[in-house]
């Protein structure tokens, strides 16, 4: 069988203790939450930490609470709890829905919000055993020098495969990071890099502690996911759509979009925002023409590569269909509410 390598497992009780343990372990140390991403990766020798520091027993990272009308979710909340959490479902049902679409119930019972937001980028040249990767002389993401997806490329094209991250970027959520230097808050969009290797701006010794969801303010969001099997696959395309509707009683422009963001998962090394698609929606009521223009705008920059399930040209074609369907749902919801 495929075995885990040997490692030291530490269980800090408070966040400061975790940071101290990481400082002691140095580059050979890694944090783990649910382990549904890290442990399979360790079996394939993608990450080879000598010390693994569990974040699951740290009270500061658990649960969620309302603060100044914003829902603040601890990073170690499991995806099962996240999808069922009443404050999350009230504040941002799209987050709960995206969490519910991750993998299987068993994996969601272990996997956490923080783990999904920090999910290692994926590629079917990379997510293979050591022996398999040896047969292609490895790739630049681990042990090698080339990106087999685009051999002339200087960068790695592994794919951002999180379901929750595109929703957080679309919502404009804030991530709270705690490191040796204290706490800092970054907007979700600035947490990610479009690079398969350095896909996070988080420093290795920082802990993603919590996520602050935006307060309700006339916005709405949905998440649509494309994958082979609804039962457990990673997304080959995720569409997070966020719109802010015109506010104020008596306004003749009521029912118009004042701001919108379309963020795609599974098509780049980060959650890929398509500003042109959002811009195409401003001033529309998500009627068919506005939706078609936005879907077309989202289709153009989407650049799926041959490193996930399905044919890449079909995946690109599907961007248009899935963006249109996500926006249609938002439009229908608005019309039903007014």
């Amino acid at each position, binding site marked *: 069988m495929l075995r885990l390598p040997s490692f030291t497992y530490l269980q800090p009780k408070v966040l400061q203790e975790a940071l101290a343990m990481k400082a002691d372990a140095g580059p050979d140390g890694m944090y783990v939450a649910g382990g549904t991403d890290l442990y399979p990766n360790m079996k394939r020798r993608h990450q080879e930490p000598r010390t693994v520091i569990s974040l699951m027993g740290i009270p500061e990272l658990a649960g969620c609470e309302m603060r100044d009308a914003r829902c603040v979710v601890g990073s170690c909340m499991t995806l099962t709890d996240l999808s069922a959490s009443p404050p999350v479902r009230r504040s941002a049902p799209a987050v709960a829905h995206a969490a519910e679409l991750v993998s299987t119930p068993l994996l969601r019972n272990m996997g956490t919000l923080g783990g999904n937001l920090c999910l290692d980028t994926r590629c079917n040249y990379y997510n293979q055993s050591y022996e398999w990767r040896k047969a292609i002389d490895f790739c630049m993401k681990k042990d090698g020098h080339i990106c087999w997806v685009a051999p002339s490329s200087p960068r790695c094209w592994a794919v951002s495969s999180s379901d929750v991250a595109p929703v957080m970027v679309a919502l404009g959520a804030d991530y709270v990071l705690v490191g040796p230097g204290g706490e800092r808050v970054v907007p979700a969009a600035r947490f990610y890099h479009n690079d398969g290797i350095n896909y996070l701006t988080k420093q290795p010794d920082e802990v993603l502690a919590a996520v602050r969801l935006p307060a309700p303010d006339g916005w709405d969001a949905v998440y649509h996911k494309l994958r082979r099997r609804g039962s*457990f696959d990673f997304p080959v395309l995720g569409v997070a759509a966020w719109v802010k509707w015109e506010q104020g009683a008596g306004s003749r422009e009521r029912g118009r979009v004042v701001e919108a963001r379309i963020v795609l998962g599974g098509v780049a090394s980060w959650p890929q925002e398509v500003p042109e698609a959002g811009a195409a929606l401003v001033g529309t009521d998500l009627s068919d023409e506005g939706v078609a223009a936005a879907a077309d705008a989202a289709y153009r920059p989407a650049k799926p590569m041959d490193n996930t399930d*399905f044919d890449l040209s079909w995946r690109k074609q599907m961007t248009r*269909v899935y963006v249109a369907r996500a926006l249609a749902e938002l439009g229908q919801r608005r019309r039903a509410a007014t």
Partner: protein
Amino acid sequence: MASGKKPTGFRVVGKPHRKVDATAKVTGVTRFADDLFLPRMLFAKLLRSPHPHARIVSIDTSKAAALPGVKAVLVGKDLPIPFGILPVSQDEHTLALDKVRFVGDPVAAVAATTEEAATQALDLITVEYEVLRAFPDALDAVEHPEPAIHDYADAGNIHKLIDLEFGDVEAGLAQADVVREDLFFFEGSTHLPMEQHAAVADWSADGKLTLWSATQTPHYVHRALAKVLELPAARIRVIACPNGGGFGGKSDPFSHEIAVAKLAMVTGRPVKVTLTREEVFYCHRGRHPTLMWVKTGLKKDGAITGMHFKSLLDGGGYGSYGVASTYYTGALQTVTYHVPQYRFQGARAFTNKPPCGPKRGHGTPQPRFALEVHLDKIAEQLGMDPAELRLKHLVPPNSLTANWLRVGTMGLGPCIEKVVRGSGWTQRFKQLPYGKGIGLACSSYITGAGLAIYWNAMPHSGVQLKCDRGGGVTVFCGSTEIGQGSDSILAMIVAEVLGLQPLDVAVVTGDTDLTPVDLGSYSSRVTLMTGNAAIQAAERARDVIALHAGKKLETPIDRVTFAEGRVFDVQDPERGLTFAEAVQLAEAAEGTIGTVGSYTPAPSAGKYRGAGVGPSPAYSYSACVAEVDVDPATGIVRVPKIWIAHDVGRVINAATVMGQIEGSVYMGLGEALMEEMAYRGNRNVVHKIPSLLEYKSPTTLEMCDVVTYVVEDPDPNGPFGAKECGQGPLLPVPPAVANAVYDAVGVRIDEVPITPEKVFKALRRKEKGEAGRFGPTAFPDIAWPEPIRVPPPWEGGDGRAVPGGARPGLAPGVRRR
């Protein structure tokens, strides 16, 4: 001897029974091969080739051997004798001797005190390779004879060439009102059993080898071990552990089994190997990717006047069952609808991928897909209902086909009627809204291969039966429980004959020291063959017991009846004994009560070269209607419901018959919609997705609703009339889905899997005014041998080839340039 009488009606047979091993399985008590731990046991790992095609220049194992914990390292020259499941394809070595033929081909084996140390040692073995040109698919192998993957083949890299002609097909086609040609492709897929292969070997101090293994064919593993290890068979014991799923993937002798045996002999310690999921993909032996061309002539009423069928199989790196698989792609076209003139040309290419072999349906799902979609197109062309076309031209029961297959009972007609009625076919076909469709397809499968893997005149299945004076009965049989319920079938059949409950019967199976030979769990042979052997053994025991019970009861022997654990006078049921008392009387009179039974299929009617593949004691029949929802914007196909009817001859265990039919539908659905052994031809021919996550197979959530109809038409060759049900119902599912997609959106997907990309492309082509089709466009030119010409039965002859047919002096396995 006049036998005791069975009461009218069955008491056990035909009812749903819990499998005898079910409780152990669901409570986690069953011990699979990987659950075995022996004192001082070592763990083995195999070093596998990183190259698809290369010559081994040198191997240095010295560093690995010096690693603490490592007890032995083996390389190819330690086990130089080749093996292979078929006598004509002895082309495998335990560890590559001089060449590797696919990424994953085993090169060296290490035994160490821990699995970690064995794994670490693999990285310390240095192998120098001379890389050779690799062949990623069959077309490439057909085009390029050099460098040859093997030094034996019918031509270059074409492993096997077959050309069989039954009657004058050209004359048949000339009589037709309509002649249609089509091309199809069926993608390769793997078995994906939940249990990964595992084996444990023990070499005793007195020089006896025991191998426990997850194998479907302990008898063939026994033979391979004796050959490669040069040990007398009497010194080898092979125990088939309960298989956590097989589906044909555990039917060959494997490198890891022989390697642990040799490692145990070298170290004097037990050695275990458990393959990773990735390694199971390298063992493979799954569905051959098959390109097919078919040309059929028909009269206006749908009567076939002649059929010409060609197949090209992508065999992978070794022979495995491939010669048989190739014949199977041409054998069973004739057993469903009457084909008066028939020609089959088949070729199997060697390629640098894991070897293909027998997967559920073995070589027949591919041609069945082609034939059933082909017929759907023909029905449309003739303006006939596809169900009517089939019903009008069924092969009659008790008849011989053009290729000399002897059809016994034939329940396809009732099967078609069941699914047509159940699905509301006549109200729905061609009448559903755009995006929704239904499709029909049928099939047939063998109930056991008529011939063994190796030529011999002995029985295919043997049973020993022992009656205990406490009233229990033990049945010993070499058959192998792979989850299909074969142990339960033995218990039920013996219980039926002796008037017991199945749980009163102990079952000992799959152990070459303890059980008489049964050839194994493949070709849907077990219920029919072990069942007939068990009936014979049980009836012999019944005769002995009835004799002495009759004396004691002062009852004529023909009135002695066995039921409900008693032996009694059928005309005066109060006059009787318990079964245990009756056994004691017999044992007192005759000594230990033990009997044997065996089964040998009747000789096949065909006597030509190649006639060995296709004959069977009985053929099962299935009909299927699939309902699909196609999203025209994406091409995504969903199958909400399937209606399937299966002619099983006679139900023995009603619960497992339903389970096997539904399981077959499930596996067929995966092949229809998503399963694909995908390789990267431009990246060293690595398997693209060797994992349970990325090799896409349906889960229970993707499974459709299934409406199952069991048709019973008892076959005289089957035990109580039973035929197979474990493979046949898979066959009609992929073509039924393809036909339903056409009904839904008007495009023909002439290959499986029917993925959204293919449907999407076909729909776009149709929008542009091109043919709304996705599928292969050409069949390559192959230098076929002179056909073997065999007159069909209605043209006289005796099932032999006529002179002037076969190329003289060309034996299988002889290389031709």
